């Protein structure tokens, strides 16, 4: 069986390594083959960008060589796919090579798209790419005081980032000694300050304690040259430093191949198979599922997909469903953190933040690489 994985991020890497362990003998005998196609020879720890944006994690700390993260049995090519020919079970890459498959995993991820809101890219900073995080660091470091606006588009990667970036910047300006010169204006698309009701309830108290102003039901329509954000709901936010959580799209190759609107592929919430395709699995941000776009989502989905792909060889059938599991750390400032864990049947119930979870998150910044290797 030829298993082809398109995408070398968290989801694709865990699928590949998990399969390599489960199918060790089949890979050795040639009964199975696992191939990964990626756009880059590097693997980025994306959550680290938040720390890069305040100068706490150097850019080179964000990366590992992708080949070094993969089990040796995984065939790896830096050669991104440009054409998906699903009817003929093959893809064509940028170099012109054709790869056929029996089972396909698409895990190409998502990207921040500030350009989809008029004026947003020109008038805001964000921490979704290395270049953006470094520009954010420059503007944050040079900021002498005024209003920090936080604006949030949908959908976006990492559901905790609006709160985390606010807490982290509040700490940053306090440590810099200019907290009394900085006002925060936090906005959020729905009628509370976070999607998860218990998280919103906790954060509302924290924001009140810190004097952070909030505007809810605020969805960006456009940003003018004076960093004034106009909302779909008819309100405005005027900022001196505008921090954006831009709306996201799937990758361009997904849109170019008409696999899904906005680059997100219609996916069955339990089997993780692409709608209408029995041998195409979708993992991570690439799905159109109404669940968190987060590394942990990709991780848990990848484990389910790998287990089922291995089971196709060993049992002749899939053996389990993805249960919607998500786990998110929440950095709460002042060296405290908590977490939210939930699935399709169990709502989140986050506990009060504490230092132990914060320090575990700091440790996880390194443990991530073990996680990508499939060891954690």
């Amino acid at each position, binding site marked *: 069986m030829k298993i082809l994985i398109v995408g070398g991020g968290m989801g694709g890497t865990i699928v590949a390594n998990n399969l390599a362990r489960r199918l060790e003998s089949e890979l050795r005998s040639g009964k199975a083959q696992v191939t990964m196609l990626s756009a880059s020879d590097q693997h980025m720890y994306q959550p680290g960008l938040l720390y890069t944006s305040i100068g706490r994690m150097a850019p080179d700390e964000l990366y590992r060589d992708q080949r070094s993260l993969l089990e040796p049995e995984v065939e790896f090519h830096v050669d991104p796919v440009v054409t998906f020919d699903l009817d003929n079970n093959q893809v064509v890459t940028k170099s012109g090579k054709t790869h056929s498959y029996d089972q396909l995993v698409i895990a190409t991820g998502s990207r921040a798209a500030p350009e989809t809101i008029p004026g947003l890219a020109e008038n805001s900073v964000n921490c979704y790419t290395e270049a953006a995080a470094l520009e954010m660091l420059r503007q944050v470091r040079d900021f002498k005081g005024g209003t920090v606006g936080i604006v949030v588009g*949908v*959908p976006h990667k990492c559901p905790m980032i609006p709160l985390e970036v606010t807490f982290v910047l509040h700490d940053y300006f306090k440590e810099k000694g200019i907290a009394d010169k900085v006002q925060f204006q936090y906005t959020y*698309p729905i009628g509370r300050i976070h*999607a998860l009701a218990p998280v919103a309830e906790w954060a509302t108290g924290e924001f009140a304690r810190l004097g952070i102003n909030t505007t809810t039901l605020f*969805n960006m329509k456009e940003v003018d040259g004076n960093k004034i954000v106009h909302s*779909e*709901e008819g309100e405005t936010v005027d900022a001196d430093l505008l921090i954006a959580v831009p709306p996201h799209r799937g990758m361009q190759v997904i849109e170019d191949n008409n696999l899904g609107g906005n680059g997100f592929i219609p996916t069955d919430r339990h089997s993780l198979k692409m709608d209408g395709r029995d041998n195409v699995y979708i993992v991570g941000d690439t799905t159109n599922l*109404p669940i968190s776009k987060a590394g942990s989502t990709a991780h848990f989905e990848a484990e389910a997909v790998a287990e089922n792909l291995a089971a196709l060889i060993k049992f002749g059938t899939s053996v389990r469903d993805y249960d919607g599991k998500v786990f998110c750390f929440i950095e709460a400032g002042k060296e405290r953190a908590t977490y939210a864990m*939930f699935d399709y049947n169990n709502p989140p119930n986050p506990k009060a933040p504490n230092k132990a979870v914060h320090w575990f998150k700091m440790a996880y910044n390194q443990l991530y690489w073990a996680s990508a290797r499939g060891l954690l």
Partner: protein
Amino acid sequence: MLELLSKGNIMSERKIIDARGTYCPGPLMELIAAMKQAEIGDELEILSTDEGSVNDVPEWINKVGHDMVETTQEGDVWHIIVRKAK
């Protein structure tokens, strides 16, 4: 997940957003994202097991100026239909 609806001589798509059993980003955020991609006149139906959707969806729809079409309950699932008006 697309259902064709007849509007006179025009066939228009009603997009169904299945947000049952999902907590984050949740039904309203999914609706907001879908609404950005919709055309004026399109109807969207959101399926939610969160009773809060019965209040927070109309609150946002009315604030922005879209149209509420219908809210029904089948078992523990709410079907909320809205129309993009602007």
